[in-house]
């Protein structure tokens, strides 16, 4: 399924080197990322945190090949994204990256099952039946597969999105506030599953969040402020995260 298996000796699944992202021009330009260098390790669950407007989403978009950086490099499993064409980036996203967004994750015209298989369909590859079945079962979606998104609850929709993100066994799964629209219990289910996918399947997950409790599911928290790296926390708990955030003034 992979275009190329990541080399064993490369520890980081994805890393940014001197990454700069400027929106707009002249007086109204915004420096959303200001010389960020960070490395996110393979097989780890990393959370990115920071005050609103600190550049979390921007960083994630650049790491995932959804947006191009103004300068600097992004390395994803040994591939330098800044050198890829739009078409190569598209194929890379399709095969090596998975996404979970805060909302609007699913195609309204497709059923849950079709949504889960969409990346494979787009690539024209056959699904690995066992893998799909185990995902569906673990996520508790077995009896919801024929439904369309409008007929699913917010939590179910998010779980479908997680299944879709994992179905290609990507190098990295990126999640931008995946629990932002969910109540705490449903959110906990989704987070728990993301953590299990890291522990049990060796998946790499990068998640942007505001919520210290959500961040505590991660192995490591990277803090951003004003587009710059502002520290990190290993093995976070809600309390350590909360106090770090307070220091940043969020």
């Amino acid at each position, binding site marked *: 399924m992979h275009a190329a298996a990541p080399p064993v000796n490369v520890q980081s699944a994805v890393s940014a080197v001197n990454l700069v992202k400027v929106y707009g021009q002249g007086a109204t330009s915004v420096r959303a990322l200001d010389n960020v260098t960070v490395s996110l390790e393979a097989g780890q669950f990393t959370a990115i945190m920071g005050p609103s407007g600190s550049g979390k989403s921007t960083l994630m978009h650049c790491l995932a090949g959804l947006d191009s950086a103004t300068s600097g490099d992004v390395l994803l499993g040994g591939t330098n994204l800044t050198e890829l064409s739009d078409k190569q980036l*598209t194929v890379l996203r399709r095969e090596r990256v998975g996404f979970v967004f*805060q909302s609007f994750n699913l195609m309204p015209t497709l059923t849950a099952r079709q949504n889960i298989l969409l990346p494979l369909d787009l690539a*024209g590859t056959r699904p690995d039946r066992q893998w799909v079945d185990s995902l569906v079962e673990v996520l508790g979606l077995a009896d919801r597969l024929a439904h369309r998104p409008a007929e699913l609850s917010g939590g179910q929709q998010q779980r479908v999105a997680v299944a879709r993100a994992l179905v290609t066994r990507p190098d990295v799964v990126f999640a931008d506030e995946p629990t932002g629209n969910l109540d705490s219990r449903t959110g906990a289910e989704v987070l728990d599953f993301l953590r299990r996918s890291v522990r049990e399947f060796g998946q790499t997950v990068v998640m942007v969040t505001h919520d210290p409790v959500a961040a505590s599911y991660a192995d490591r928290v990277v803090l951003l402020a004003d587009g710059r790296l502002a520290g990190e926390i290993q093995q976070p708990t809600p309390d350590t995260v909360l106090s770090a955030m307070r220091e940043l003034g969020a």
Partner: protein
Amino acid sequence: MRRMMLASIRGHAARYVAGGLAVVLGVAFVTTALLVLNSTKAAMAEAVGAQYARADLVVASNQNDLTPDAVRRIQGMEGVAAASGVAVTGVEVHYPGSPGSVWVQVSGIPLDPDLRWQRVKDGRLPEKPDEVAVAASTAKDKNLRLGTRLTLTTGQSRVHDVRVVGIVRGGTLAQDITLVATDQATTAWGDGATYLEVLVRAADGADLAALRTRLSAAVGADITVQTANERVTELVAGLTGGVDVLGAFLLGFAGIALFVATLVVANTFTILLAQRTRELALLRCVGARRGQVFGSVLLESVVLGVAASALGVAAGAGLAALAVRLLEGQANGLMPSSLMPSTPTLVVPFVAGLTATVAAALAPARRATRVSPLAALRPEMAVTVRSRAGVVRVVLALVLVLGGGAILVAGTRTSAIMVGLAAGIGGGLVSFLGVLLGAPVLVPAAVRLIGLLSARVGGVPGRLAVSNAVRNPRRTAATAAALLVGVTLISLMTVGAASVQRTLHESLDRSYPLDLTVSAEGGERLADRTLAALRGVDGLAGTVPLRAGQVALVDDPSMRVQVHGVDPAAAAKLLRNPGPLGGLRDGLAIVGPVTAAQFGLEEGGSWRLRTSSGGELTVRVRMVRDEDTPSVIVSAGDLARLAPKAQIAVLWARIGEPADTKAVLERVQQVVGDLDNVSVGGAAPMRAMYDQILDVLLLIATGLLAVAVVIALVGVGNTLSLSVIERTREQALLRALGLTRGQLRGMLAFEALLIAAAAVVLGLLLGIGYGWSGTTVLLRTAAEGQVALDIPVSRLLLVAGVALVAGLAASVLPARRAVRVPPAAALGDE
């Protein structure tokens, strides 16, 4: 509220472009039609009126029997300042360089210089009997110059050589006048010195009414006396009958274009309002009344209607000016030389465009008022409602389709043509209305079916395209409806024309079995050179010679009759039906009715003819009426015994298929052109004429309908680009998940293609149905029930191909926009 609405129009102006463009095109069409018609009528009145500009009263006789004496009597009457007769006569003209001669009308120059109206562009008016002036358009057509010599043959077969001394300016001749000559010459060429009209100028201060009464009393009962104005009005009314028919025709097509534009605008509003559901709901949340929402939408449509209609009128005026420039000088100056706008020609299209736009917005506006304030609070996903066609709509559509269809079928069965026409048009309209009403069910079904058939080529983008195309059945139906109208009408015209053509051909075959006959007059022989040249003419499928000889009668040796002989087998292959040869074989004579009467012959009777060797040959008589065949025909074998020295006098020919009949005829004319004892006959010219008329009609109708189709395609592109805007997040999501730009383009192209294909398939089916029933209704009586229906496959495929390619092209711009959206947009949480 109003400020908000204007801001909304400004904010969404780009989204109104396509809807507005549709209205502009429709209104421009109506304006052009009205302006050209109006200018043509005005030009006609001017051209016709020129003749009467200097007269106060006109004495006219339909019998062309006003004598010079009568003119002198009128001149002598009290209150008459001047009076002159207007002579009009017909002559045959041979133009140098063109084959044959044509029958044209000559008008005389009034004797009294004060009443002359003809004005020359070049040269001068004729002064001597051997001088003529020609109409400018004829001079151009036939390449005539000052000094060109023409040969005229009068009704009494007298031949005159005349010289062109002037070219008459367009607009100073009535439509049917080609030549102008002196009064003396014109009356001399006619069959007596008589006038059609006498122009009368009253003396200064004379009482016109009294003079008119006195003139009426003086000239007699059958002759009318009119004021110059009355005369012009009457003549123009007679002439413009044709223009009015043309006008109805043009305006009918303009109406269709405007109707299609209305569909496009309705579609635009429906989509725009659907996109603004949350905006409208928010308005309702903050306290806007339903009426205010309705009013704001309607006001938007008024602004759009005013702007688009004004543009349309301006564009139409420009087009009309161009058309007038192109038509100038055609048809003897009857075509306008300048645009003559009148208030109605500008106001009517404007009002029509505005009304159509506002009417189109009514239903969407009403739907907008039903948006509940809660919609503003619902998550985005719920906004993509899947509207289902109501049961009532489906039932009503079915009733209309079945009812209209039944009326239509009944119309094709009746032999009363007026009833049939009414039933045909009524039934057709009602059933088509039913189809449009049922489109939200029919079109998605057709899309699904076509999608199923083509699923293999489409892949995932194809599947997505199908589900996109059917997710909002109303919108898809509305998009397809515009194209459906166009395709239905064009295929209706195509099938109708092909069927009329075939019916006509078959009926021509029945009545005119012989395409071409070239015969030497009086049974003389056709020269070998001529025969060889004729046989070699390109485009002839075959020729059969007929020999002619003089044969003596046994019963009355003093009488001789001209007998033609032909090989029955060869002739049977050549004729389009065996009628005129009536089973010719040895021992049978085909005799025309005149000859039969002359010799007292009866059907089935025997006729004894003297052979060359002095013997006797008895033939059975079969009477056949056919104008193109000689009056006595026997088999070639019999003729050899009756007149062994008989020479080839006639050549029959059949034109091959497919052939350019006109070109073949011209080539045949070229061969026989200089021989004056040879004449060409047969039904081919008639066939060619009918074909040409049909082709021209079809071309014009297709051209006019093309405007409607272009508008419909603007609509397809419009729907697609609006739905691209609506589905920005969806597309960005797909892009984030790995849909390439090419696949996204393919998806949109496939969606456009599906919608176009649904419209094409339905349109072709309907067009064929309507074309057939329409032809049947029209021709049933004339063709004595023998209507031949035809499906011109290649032309229909062309129609389908053009519509599909155009549908595909309509997806290009929306797709360009769609691929520019960065995939990161899907992540935004608004």
